[in-house]
């Protein structure tokens, strides 16, 4: 595809992205109004209800102004990454998020690497030895992985590897890169169970579809080494479905992070979200939701661009289904 075509495509998607972000921010802002009960009471939480605190809150959230003006002022603040203060801890939401972002990123990247390496690797191995004992075992494992939610995997791993055999720690996050690596291995594996199964399934299906293609048979007939056929002809096509399902993988990782962090008592964004939901801490809820939403929207755009670069057959602006 031409460079101009790609540029046009990216521009088009950026406009859609902007519209989406406005929509998402509006819904996020409205969370405060969906919440049943008096707005002041919700924002006060357990703090004392005095004329002074009420006045301070009214000023801070512009409660005496019309709804749309409130939204506009809130959105301006949110654009500068300011989401107000937490109701329960009275700390700025931004610093609450900042303190936990690193751990969640570490977990997410660790699991993503596991997903790619084991998902694609096992998927390819399964397809190449189709019908064998290994293939059947993997197909069964995929079924099990897809049906095992992250929190069940967490508890099972905790029990086996931290309590029965003391290979990994049961609690804590560790200090320093390698100590953290050791502490976060069980949570990352628990997080990756579903996504690995999912990627194995799709990679296997794509590889089997590609193995019978004329160009692969021709490459073999020309006497190319099976290594070359695998890397040059097969793998590229096996990677395409992984990109197509990247949205699902990301959403599965985000859901998993929430469950795994709670199961392992890790202080990350997922457990922050659950704590905020339990305590009805709406400003924190808004901050975390907006962050997750931006990650999903931007990642989907990136996936589409990568998709087009890897697979030139995709028509620009064509319908997805």
């Amino acid at each position, binding site marked *: 595809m031409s460079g101009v075509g790609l540029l046009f495509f990216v521009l088009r998607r950026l406009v859609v992205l902007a519209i989406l972000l406005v929509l998402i921010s509006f819904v996020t802002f409205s969370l405060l109004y969906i919440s049943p009960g008096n707005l002041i009471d919700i924002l006060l939480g357990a703090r004392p209800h005095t004329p002074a605190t009420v006045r301070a809150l009214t000023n801070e959230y512009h409660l005496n102004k019309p709804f749309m003006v409130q939204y506009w002022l809130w959105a301006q603040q949110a654009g500068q990454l300011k989401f107000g203060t937490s109701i329960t801890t009275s700390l700025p939401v931004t610093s609450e998020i900042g303190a936990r972002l690193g751990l969640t990123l570490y977990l997410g990247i660790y699991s993503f690497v596991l997903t790619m390496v084991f998902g694609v690797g096992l998927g390819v191995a399964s397809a190449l030895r189709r019908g064998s004992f290994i293939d059947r075992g993997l197909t069964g494992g995929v079924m099990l992985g897809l049906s095992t939610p992250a929190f069940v995997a967490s508890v099972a791993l905790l029990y086996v590897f931290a*309590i029965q055999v003391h290979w990994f720690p049961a609690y804590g996050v560790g200090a320093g890169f390698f100590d953290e690596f050791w502490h976060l291995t069980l949570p990352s594996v628990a997080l990756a169970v579903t996504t690995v199964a999912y990627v194995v399934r799709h990679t296997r299906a794509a590889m089997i579809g590609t193995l019978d293609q004329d160009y692969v048979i021709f490459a073999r007939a020309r006497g190319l080494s099976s290594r070359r056929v695998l890397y040059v002809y097969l793998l590229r096509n096996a990677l395409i479905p992984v990109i197509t399902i990247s949205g699902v993988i*990301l959403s599965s990782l985000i859901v998993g992070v929430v469950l795994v962090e709670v199961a392992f008592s890790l202080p990350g964004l997922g457990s922050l979200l659950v704590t905020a939901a339990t305590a009805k801490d*709406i400003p924190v809820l808004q901050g975390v939701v907006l962050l997750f939403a931006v990650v999903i929207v931007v990642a989907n755009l990136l996936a589409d661009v990568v998709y087009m670069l890897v697979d030139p057959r995709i028509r620009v602006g064509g319908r997805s289904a």
Partner: protein
Amino acid sequence: MTANTVLVLADERPETTRRGRRRVVAPLIWLSFLIVAGVLVMAALGTLLAPQNPAAQHLATINASPSGAHWLGTDALGRDVFSRVIAGARTAFFGPLIIAAASFVLGNLLGLFAGYRGGLADAIIMRWVDFMWALPALVILVVVAGAVGSSYWLAVVVLIVLTVPFDTRVIRGATLEQMPRPYVEAVKTLGVPRWKIMLFHIWPNVSPIAVANTCLVFAGSLVTLAGLEFLGLGVPPGTPDWGLMLSQNEALLFTNPLATIAPGVMIVLTAISMNLIGDWLYEQLTSRGAGR
């Protein structure tokens, strides 16, 4: 939720119809049906079936290991874990059942309509489906619980809304495959009303996919709902529920690990059985004439 159980249709089917594999698969399918039937009975009869009152606390015997009196031991309040596992089938089964049924009806109607009509209606419906596609359902449930308050039935309703696009997409794809067939052309020529063509002529041909897909939806929503209960944002505390038991008894891993492991095993067993049945139904119904 449904995210992790998307059907990989067509691609990996041929080999499973080979005889050798079928002999291995059949007993597994019987087992799956047995497990689902067992859970259904547990969900319907619940406390009638439980040997002890699942809510009764015996503070003298807390965190007890399995014994003749308590087959799976007791939890931190001395409640019988075995009875709570049986009683917990109710919230695990009926919520997903309602979600699967509602999403089946709405998803089939929307999917048929979008696939049959095409044009603007299709474009609008599919834009909406694309937007809803791959949303992290559990996170949305957590946020709704945080803003509105935790409620099991509210979670069920929100999950229906999040699941309908999944059904719609699958049914629309299957409908599009039927559109160029001669029988569709024939009934159109005969002047059969549109809704009759969709419901009585096209739908019977896409129904195998719809039924198989519903099993996957059931398994997916079971896992998502259990996740919400695990986070403590679904049923009220004290309710016997597999997800909730898993989080409340996590501290018991050192004393009575079965109190945590048993509900986890039940979640996985029920989900995997439904997934296997879904895959199997798809194979059976599509290879015997109907559909493709």
